[in-house]
């Protein structure tokens, strides 16, 4: 299977996939093709890729998504540069850093730039971006978040809530 061929969009967060934002092939598809590359992905990498795939499909746990992506990037990027470039660009378009100036404040949203290989370095760049906007960080806290929860996840959660009620 060729990871480098183009294909249609199949990510859960369709609503934020506008042509200007997300021309790259979608993350789930890229992961599926990486998983199909026999002999070029180790067992441990396969486990991590499956975990990342699940997190992306759920689009709920951005912190864990970021951790898994950075871990995989260090392990695999040099062997699969284009695939990781596509993943990186997809994540930059679909993740955001929510910066809390203090616990009670409404978070400021800053774009996530994946120019570094370590989660903490990326976090620090996002904090610097928030400061450059003129935000005074009294007791700063930063968490990564998905732009939007995909409709299929919301539907499942609503169904579960109704069942429990």
């Amino acid at each position, binding site marked *: 299977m060729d990871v*480098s061929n183009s294909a249609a969009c199949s990510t859960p967060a369709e609503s934020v996939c506008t*042509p*200007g*934002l997300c*021309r790259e092939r979608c993350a789930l598809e890229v992961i599926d093709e990486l998983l199909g590359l026999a002999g070029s992905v180790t067992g441990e990498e396969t486990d991590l890729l499956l975990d990342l795939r699940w997190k992306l499909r759920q689009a709920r746990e951005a912190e864990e998504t970021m951790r898994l992506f950075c871990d995989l990037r260090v392990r695999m990027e040099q*062997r699969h*540069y*284009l695939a990781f*470039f596509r993943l990186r*660009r997809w994540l930059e378009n679909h993740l955001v850093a929510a910066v809390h100036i203090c616990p009670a404040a409404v978070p400021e949203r800053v774009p996530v730039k994946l120019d570094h290989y370590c989660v903490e370095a990326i976090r620090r760049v996002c904090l610097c971006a928030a400061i450059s906007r003129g935000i005074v960080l009294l007791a700063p806290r930063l968490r990564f978040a998905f732009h939007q929860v995909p409709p299929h996840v919301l539907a499942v959660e609503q169904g579960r809530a109704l069942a429990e009620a």
Partner: protein
Amino acid sequence: MNSPIAKTSSTVRKDTRVIDGLNLVLADSYALMALTHLAHWNVEGPDFFQLHQAFQKQYEEMFEAVDEIAERVRALEAYAIGGLGTLAKVAQMEEFKSPAPQKDYVAALIVAHEKVIDDAVGTRDLSGEAGDLESQDLLIGRIASHQKTLWMLKSYLKS
């Protein structure tokens, strides 16, 4: 006997869908040409000379191609779109940040070439449906050229 292939004549076969498609491919090509030029200027690293020269060859080829596409639009008795703002708006091609690692320039250009190919394939098919074989021929040539560049760029990224 009816031939499945449309006959060439001095009267052009005008189809607004084909004209719109050609203008889209024109905008895509112009945007990609500008991105390739940017990569040519700013690429850095151990493969500088190789990439600098390859990017130059690519944007020079596209410079000739945009002229050919625009003139095909005129041959169809329509007007070619132009102006950097209009071309960027129509192409909707994501601009990459610069400076960037040399492999990122290559990967970003791969993504941009894929976009041009997708739009050119759509317009090629519309040209075929409309019986506009000259536009179809032009687009087939463009697709083949972008596919060749894709092959080269992807080969560079393989470790």
